[in-house]
């Protein structure tokens, strides 16, 4: 029994955790590890990018760019955050860079970019957004439309919290904002989403 315990202990010491394996693989720029990560995270990343950009084509471009950036900057991943959190941070930074390239006058946060990119205008128009087109079910369409009408800063924290199940600390890291700001966006975002959904139902 004691021997078995010792074996389990030594296994738990020598067996690397998933985060350690990811760190090592990223440092080695191991393409097989990247394949596994792409398989594991592609849906979540794509969903986040679609919610961020509101545009399937832009999300596809950023999707590929994000994974290339993960490969290039893999040595910077330090296990402080879960891999998913780091991935979303990279994706968001690439989105902000792309928006700034398009509108050099735009600011550095999502709300300002929202206005500069005209995304909010597209979202509130009657024409279905590309995000709409991806939704298969009627309910899904209604929620997507409601979400589209929200400000990007609300939409993004709602998606990260309730779709991706990120903690407040993780969301704060992704959106580069203090925790109280994240909380306040979540509260306001929830209210706004409720209003939109009730408006849609009426």
């Amino acid at each position, binding site marked *: 029994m004691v021997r078995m315990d010792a074996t389990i202990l030594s296994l738990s010491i020598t067996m690397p955790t998933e985060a350690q394996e990811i760190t090592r693989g990223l440092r080695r*720029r*191991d*393409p097989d590890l*990247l*394949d596994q990560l*792409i*398989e594991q995270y*592609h*849906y979540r990343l*794509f*969903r986040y990018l*679609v919610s961020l950009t509101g545009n399937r084509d832009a999300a*596809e471009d950023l*999707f*590929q760019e994000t*994974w*290339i950036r993960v*490969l*290039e900057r893999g040595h910077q991943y330090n296990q402080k955050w879960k891999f998913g959190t780091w991935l979303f941070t990279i994706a968001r930074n690439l989105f902000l860079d792309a928006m700034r390239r398009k509108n050099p006058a735009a600011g550095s946060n999502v709300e300002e970019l929202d206005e500069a990119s005209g995304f909010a205008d597209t979202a509130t128009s009657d024409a279905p957004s590309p995000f709409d087109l*991806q*939704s*298969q*079910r009627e*309910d*899904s369409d*209604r*929620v*997507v439309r*409601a*979400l589209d009408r929200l400000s990007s800063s609300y939409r993004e924290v*709602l*998606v990260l*919290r*309730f*779709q991706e199940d990120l903690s*407040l600390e993780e969301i704060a890291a992704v959106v580069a904002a203090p925790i109280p700001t994240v*909380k306040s966006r*979540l*509260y306001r975002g*929830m*209210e706004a*989403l*409720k209003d939109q*959904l*009730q408006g849609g139902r009426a």
Partner: protein
Amino acid sequence: MTQELHNRAQGLIAAARVEGISPTDREWLDAHLQNCSSCSEYASDTEHAIRSLHLISVQVDPALVARTKRAVHIRARQLNGQRSQLWPLWMLCAISWVLGGITLPLVWRGIEWVGQYVNLPSPIEIFLLVLWWALPTLGVAAFISSKGAKAAGE
């Protein structure tokens, strides 16, 4: 019931989903919801809004995933190739450091002799010695950064 109680209940309903609430608050809220239809409706609307986010389905094109994997493999080969190309350069750099260290007394004597011959101030002699020792490294660093800039440009 006062408006204050409804406000408290609605604040707790939202807080429960955003940051969590204490067991005491949870108990109070549950008791309040049993007796208050408007707050119960508020709670169910909140739940509905949050649950609705899970209804969104996004289709990911398998071709996009395959394309991305290919792009990542190509870039990984490029980067790892650059890394292996630079390895001999770093080795040469290390050898030159070691040789520089071994021959330091000899070179210092030579610089001193030249310094006396052309009457150089000693800070310049020291500068020449440091330069002689650091020159290969600086050369390699310049080469690597120019290669890096070229790769970034590509």
